[in-house]
């Protein structure tokens, strides 16, 4: 479904990604953990080409997408993204936020797009908030709208970059529940998160990234209970307490 081969990325002199090779099969939920600055966000952005890898190849459904003859806009329609800071469009209601992508990018008729947006908002538990502006919503509600907005494009896979790190503790649950439901419905997902409860119950695999490389990879139980790498062990013991 999503495959990366030997991804490298430099920011000036900084070598942020030093050869990331990964494969996520359909319906998989891959969780990426790792210390701050290890390149997790940069790697996610390489997948939907918000950041262009300097070297290496990104495949979606077997097609290499980081090629000059493939428009990045097309790639981004295939893969939804949810950000740490929600990034809802301030001037639009929840409904308009969700419907905008299909209307503008897919040229869907407005009423069709809005009907679908209503269904998606209901799915994330926000049917009553259609007409609310982002400033009128709690963080948890904003993030759920953001998830619905990404889903509205019918993506083949979803990328989540620390979706609950900016939330007050009381709103984390509702967002993780929506994500867990999505996973159970079979959505292919790559999630950067340090929510260990979510990772151990939902993830099919966990990847530990440090210094721009993958240090360890395995099932949740292996990583959390029996990490092989010394750095993984130190990191896991730090976030588990």
């Amino acid at each position, binding site marked *: 479904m999503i495959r990366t081969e030997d991804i490298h990325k430099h920011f000036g002199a900084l070598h942020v990604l030093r050869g990331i090779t990964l494969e996520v099969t359909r319906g998989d939920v891959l969780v990426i953990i790792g210390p701050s600055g290890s390149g997790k966000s940069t790697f996610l952005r390489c997948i*939907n080409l*918000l950041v262009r890898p300097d070297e290496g190849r990104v495949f979606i459904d077997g097609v290499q997408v980081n090629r000059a003859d493939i428009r990045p*806009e*097309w790639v*981004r*329609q295939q893969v*939804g*993204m949810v*950000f740490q*800071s*929600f*990034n*809802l*469009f*301030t*001037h639009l*209601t929840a409904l308009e936020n969700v419907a*905008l*992508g299909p209307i*503008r*990018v897919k040229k869907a008729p407005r009423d069709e797009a809005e009907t679908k947006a209503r269904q998606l908002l209901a799915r994330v538990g926000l049917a*009553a*908030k259609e*007409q*609310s*502006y*982002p*400033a*009128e*919503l*709690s*963080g948890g509600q904003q993030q759920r709208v*953001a998830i619905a*907005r*990404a889903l509205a*494009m019918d993506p083949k896979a979803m990328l989540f970059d620390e979706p609950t790190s900016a939330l*007050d503790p009381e709103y984390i649950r509702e967002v993780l529940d929506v994500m867990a439901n999505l996973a159970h419905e079979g959505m292919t997902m790559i999630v950067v998160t340090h929510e260990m409860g979510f990772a151990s119950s939902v993830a099919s695999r966990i990847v530990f990234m440090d210094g721009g490389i993958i240090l360890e990879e395995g099932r949740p139980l292996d990583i959390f209970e029996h990490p092989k790498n010394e750095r993984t062990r130190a990191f896991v013991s730090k976030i588990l307490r």
Partner: protein
Amino acid sequence: MAVATEHVGRTRAPPIFSLSNAARIVEMVIGGLLLISIMSVVLKFDIRDPRLWAGYGPNFVRGFWGTLGYIALILPISVGVGFAAGWARVSGHRMLAWPAGAFVDFFRGVPPIVVILFAFLFGVDFIPLRVQLFLQDVFGTSSNSLPFTLAAFAVAFHSGAYQAEIFRAGFQSISRGQIEAAEALGMRHFQTMRSIILPQTVRLSLPPLGNEFAVLIKDTSLLGALGATELVGLSQEFTAQIPISGGQIVWAFAIWSSVALTYFVMTFLVTRLLRLIERRFRTPGLDVMSL
């Protein structure tokens, strides 16, 4: 955080012409007339003197329409120039940002009357003869009126420089994250511009633009110093003739009160209109207070 949990619909649009606005203008007009009458008693002259109005009336009407014409010319140009320069400054292209920055700095640093004089006196020399002829053919501008048009452009550029800063602030207040979110949906540059950046910039810019429009309306009076057909210039022309024509010097009081009142009503209407538009499009989280 979780206060806004009740259903919130779009705020109902306020009526464009509210009673309180009309009342404010009526108040001002009555107040102005009252002041003029009182002063005419104190200064001992007849405000209804037919010699005054027969002489000044035509000047006032001609000046008023002239001023409206200049506003109609200058306002759209200034917004266009201001928007373009504001955008150029945040475009990230040095070849655009640098000239735009120089433009803003220049027009903010030089008194408008000086720029206007330059444009009036020397502007024509910079316009190729072929373009001058073209303008004459298309707009019917005579070679006499061209310097005035160029002076009007100077006013527009002066205001445009200030508006550029307003638009720049609007552009810059849109979070990088929202632009990235639009990109992540697969929007192209111009779609992001049209659907995300423009609507928010315009909304954020409306209140300061209202102030700037008021300044611009008043600045058109500078053209009177060149002898352009506009309210202040023609009023000054008549005032200067009063002693020669055997009128009373205190007429000047009535004349300049009328002029002041006219500018007040014009700026008042424009700023109120903008405020109403702004209120109609008000969005929670997108007002100046929340910046």
